[in-house]
């Protein structure tokens, strides 16, 4: 017998269950719900202030595509806020071409400025070449370098903040990963505030939204494009953690919330308030970092002469 599949708020067909698993939402009410929750995240955490120039990290994958769509909609009446999309082209053959094209299409549709910076331009080599013989560390290396490239790009365009498309699943995965690595510094690190003259604040407006909601939103609004998965992703611990959590979520729906709750409680204990006096500047690139040489320069040094001092 067919179950009644009407939206809980109107007569249209539902496309998703609400986060309480009881309400049913049609396409329009899903969008309304997403906008409300993203707005809540922004307001509650005071993520955006008048005068901000937000660099939206737009890889062209699903999360960043949803981010730029939702953020543009929320900020469309705010003439005091500037949004620029930044795409970092790591240079991953067979993967980057399509996502880059999708990013270009999105900014065109939305009429947003776009700044593209490639690893080759910035570091002298693309990721494929930087990874030769080191593919087992691909995600770590790429993550460190992409972070640096984003910072450089955001500073170049004069942004005051970097917004990334991290969703609630990503957040939960990061908690479990950091716990499994025993990395309490990463666990409690909160990059929302930034630090004047040192780090640009990094904000995650989608941190309350599950990736399934984002994909369904893209699908029903015609923005879903089947994109290849990064060829290096299979090497990552995150992939396995992701499987574990999604299976757990089915059996124990509160598992994801519990992980994030745990992180927030640990954060509130202020175990590791960073002492601004311990922050040094990298000897090579002069970026602020915790040691003598920053993570990015440590990676680049063996292969690229300009990082060899």
């Amino acid at each position, binding site marked *: 017998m067919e179950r009644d599949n009407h939206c809980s708020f109107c007569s249209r*067909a539902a*496309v*998703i269950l609400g986060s309480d698993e009881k309400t049913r939402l049609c396409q329009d009410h899903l969008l309304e719900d997403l906008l409300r929750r993203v707005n809540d995240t922004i307001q509650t955490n005071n993520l955006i202030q008048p005068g901000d120039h937000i660099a939206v990290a737009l890889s062209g*994958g699903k999360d960043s595509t949803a981010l730029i769509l939702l953020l543009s909609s929320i900020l469309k009446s705010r003439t005091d806020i500037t949004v620029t999309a930044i795409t970092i082209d790591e240079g991953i053959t067979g993967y980057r071409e399509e996502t880059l094209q999708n990013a270009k299409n999105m900014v065109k549709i939305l009429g947003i400025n776009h700044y593209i910076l490639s690893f080759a331009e910035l570091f002298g080599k693309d990721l494929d070449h930087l990874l030769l013989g080191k593919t087992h560390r691909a995600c770590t290396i790429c993550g460190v370098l992409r972070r640096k490239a984003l910072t450089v790009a955001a500073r170049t365009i004069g942004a005051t903040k970097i917004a990334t498309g991290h969703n609630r*699943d990503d957040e939960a995965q990061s908690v479990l990963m950091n716990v499994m690595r025993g990395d309490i510094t990463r666990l409690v690190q909160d990059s929302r505030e930034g630090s004047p003259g040192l780090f640009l604040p990094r904000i995650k407006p989608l941190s309350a939204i599950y990736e399934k909601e984002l994909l369904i939103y893209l699908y029903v609004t015609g923005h879903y494009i089947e*994109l290849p998965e990064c060829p290096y992703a299979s090497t990552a611990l*995150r992939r396995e953690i*992701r499987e574990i959590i*999604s299976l757990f979520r089915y059996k124990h729906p509160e598992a994801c919330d519990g992980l994030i709750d745990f992180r927030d409680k640990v954060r509130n204990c202020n175990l590791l308030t960073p002492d601004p006096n311990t922050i040094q500047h990298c000897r090579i690139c002069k970026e602020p970092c915790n040691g003598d040489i920053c993570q990015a320069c440590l990676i680049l040094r063996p292969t690229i002469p300009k990082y060899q001092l």
Partner: protein
Amino acid sequence: MQIILPDKSSRIISKDNVPIREILLDLGFAPSGVIVIKNGSVVPDDLIAGDDDEIRIIKIAHGG
């Protein structure tokens, strides 16, 4: 019913009036990791599928 898997391959399973969520779990997919298209429309996975239905499963790729 006809199932179209994320890799585009399809298979027929002979089940009638089963919750889609059960089919997903039988096939080894976590419900939070996929979206379900029933006869061309995205649907919540608590719906029931019958013998004449076509169910397409899209796996949520990580990243981006």
